[in-house]
């Protein structure tokens, strides 16, 4: 059994990658955001949020990502969101116009390449 969502952080090349496993909704959006923020050191150029294993994400999740983007922008850090084109949540992200604020990548490598 797992919690609704789990944030797994790795730093393969100087940029932290926060992988969100599970579902994000009103019940855990704040917690997920806090966990991602905790994974970003002040000196890091930015963070990659990997939504590949995310199985559910609604407007609260979108809101979370937008808030995150705002915070990082103020600290002059970059945010990249990974969402494969076949993912069920990609449409949610585009419908909410997240892609106009935050760059979306198909893979972690692409995101790391853009930020790093």
């Amino acid at each position: 059994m797992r919690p609704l969502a789990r944030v797994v952080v790795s730093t393969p090349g100087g940029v932290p990658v926060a992988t969100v496993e599970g579902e994000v909704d009103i019940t855990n959006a704040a917690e997920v955001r806090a966990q991602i923020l905790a994974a970003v050191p002040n000196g890091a150029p930015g963070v990659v949020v990997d939504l590949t294993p995310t199985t559910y994400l609604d407007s609260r999740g979108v809101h979370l990502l937008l808030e995150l983007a705002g915070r990082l922008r103020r600290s002059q850090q970059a945010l990249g969101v990974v969402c494969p084109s076949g993912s069920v949540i990609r449409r949610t992200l585009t419908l909410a116009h997240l892609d106009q604020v935050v760059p979306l990548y198909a893979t972690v490598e692409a995101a790391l390449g853009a930020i790093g």
Partner: protein
Amino acid sequence: MTILPPAPAPSGKPWSPASWGLAARLIVGLALLLVLILLFTVGTYQLAVWERRQAMALARQPERPSRMTGEARFGAIVPVTTTGWAVAFTRPVGPLEAALRRQFLGRAGAIWGVTLLAGLLAAVLVSRMVRPLRVLVRAATAMARGERPTVAPVGDPPEAAALADAIRAMSAAVAQREDALRDALHLRDHLYRMTEAVTRAERVEEIYDRALEALLQGVGADRAAILLQDRDGVMRCVRSAGLSPAYCAAVEGHSPWAATTADPQPVLIPDVAVGLEPPLRETVLGEGIRAMAFFPLVAEGRLIGTFMVYYDTPHAFRNAEVQTAQAVAGHVAFAIRRHRAEEARRRMERTQRYLAEASRVLSESLDYERTLHEVARLAVPALADLCLVDLRGDDGVVRRVVAVHADPARARLMEVLRRYAPDPAREAGAGRVLRTRQPEVVQPVEEAWLARVAQDAVHLQVLRELGVAAQMTVPLLARDAVLGTILFAACDPRRRFDADDLALAEELGRRVALAIENARLYARERHIAETLQRSLLPDRLPEIPGLRVAARYLPAGPEAEIGGDWYDVLALPTGEVALVMGDVAGRGVRAAATMGQLRNAVRAYALEGHPPALIVERLNALLHADEMATCLYVTLDLASGRVRFVNAGHVPPLVVAPEGRVTALEGGALPLGILSHARYPEGEATLAPGALLLLFTDGLVEARGRSLDDGLAALRRAAAETAGVEEPAEVIDRLVAALLGREAPVDDVAVLAARPTPLPLERLRLRFPAVPASLPTLRHTLKRWLAAAGVAPAEAYEILVAAGEASSNAIEHAYGAADGTFAVETALEDGTVTVTVQDWGRWRDPRGAHRGRGLVLIRAFMDTVEVHRSGVGTTVRMQRRVRRGPAG
């Protein structure tokens, strides 16, 4: 009446009047002598009487000369053979001899004449002397025979007259002594029989009766009475004969001796008119009494009462009477003393028996109101005729819990009396005892007193009707509090409660109070524990779509403390369901508290999303050193039927397949609290569609006289028979009935049954608490439903997002509303999925960017969206046409 024993027979030969007297014998003797002299002197022949042997010897001799004449004699000797004598005749004597003989005869004739005259004179004299003696002899003989002869007057001689007087005096003396002896024997006999009767007497009244009888007969009194000292030292008339009640009442309290008089002596009043002072004299004379006497009743040196005897005429008391009365008094005093001692002993025994019996009843049950009834039933009629028990409740209100009467015919009156609980404000009765905590004895119970305690006219009437003569009320004291009172009343007008009765009542009061306090303490603790336990157990199980679940908690019998069994059903954020069951060792408040901690810990750990084994390991670490518990944690994935479980020392759960096959989910580890770092392995199984999962505590299978294995086997059999019973609640009912019957279980029992069921495809109606935590459950349920309906995963996801957004809004609307729920209904019809989300909260305009985005998403993902707002809530109806894949 026994008379004297027969007079002893006179010893020796009886004197016969036919015997010749002295005079007759003298006359005959003289006559014979005369004949012989004549024969020897007058005859010419000598007639001689010889002894036979001598005669024969003489006959054989040759003739020998005569003594007088010298001539030989001849004659014949005739032996008289029968006598041994011989008669001899000899030849006639010679002439000289004859002449001499005549001469001699002349002289002799004169001598003879004189002799004869003297003889006659002597005969007359003797005869005169003998006659009075004969009379006296007759009298003496009659006396010796026991008669009382009259001695005829005797004139001469003076000695005879004196003798007659002496005999007369003797006769009188003998008669007197005989009378005295007869009296003494009579008395002895009387006393003996009285003593016997008194000894045999079972009731003290019999002693009084026998004593009065003995007294009246023993002293020949006309009337009598017995007065005894009561506890206050006042002489009370307990029995009387021939006296008026008024007189008896008048003499009560009178005593010629002080209570402390060391050796009281009888007081005799031969004539009341001179021996008594007014006004007592007038009272006594008025009763017709002319003489009287007081005899003290003394037992063990102490004056206990008085014997009174009365005569209707002045009476000179004889010693014998006084002695008799004293003897009777002594016996009776002793008998009364003995009877009292016996009575005291019997009473002590009765008291001990009663207290023992009451204690047994009191200790048998904690249901003290019923127990009090039984104790009261024991008290009547053993101690009193009537018994009332009043208890002050925790609220301070006094209630009458028991009102019983020895006579069943009085039951109706007691029912009325039961309504009159004592008023603590009253100055008398149970109310005062409640206030003062002091026992109260009222006797005799008088009208004025009844009027004081009666609360109204009906009450007074009932009290009068009952005719209470004496009553005592004791407080039920426990530690510092007065729990209530017990009242005992006697309806026999003569009955009085004494110090012993009161001591018994007080002792009973102490025991009853202790029992009540114990029962109340127990009830209070049990109430706390039950409340705690109830508050810790789920008051209702969550509604989980696709899962039918029921649970039952059966507390052990009323005498047992509550246990620490618990169960729980949780909808996990992942869409799985957790079923929890556990049993904390021990009983009472502490076990219930531990159970509460464990239950909350399980909920917290489970909702945080920890795996089963970790949850149980954390529980184990949570327990204190001296605590122990079993725990079974099962997760169930409703979509797949997959079961994961961790068992810490609990009885294995059972799986009942639809066709009735029963399997246990074996595998487990130590109970919690044994090893601080124990590892708990996780087991897995898959439920077949329609299978039932059964969790229970050992209370279900453990019963009196049945081993755990037998119990488990019985449960498996009973479970197999429930195949076909759809509702888990009914399955539990049947199992409980089969395993426990109607009796309350020995130990607490918790049972939980869950059966996953397919979701209805046409229409799914869900209702959730309006909290964010409902959203994952909603999504997982909808996801299962959509999958079952054959909706493609991508489309299903978008419908989920739309439903989730609408539901998030509904939860916000319902925030703070009275009915904090929202409803989701989905339907599939003609390839169109309709989702309706309804809340009963207050509409709030979208605020913040995400809310607007929510609606954007809904509109984007669904074909049509209708929002209805009203004063009672908001309904969002959304539809989307779906491409249906293969069914299932």
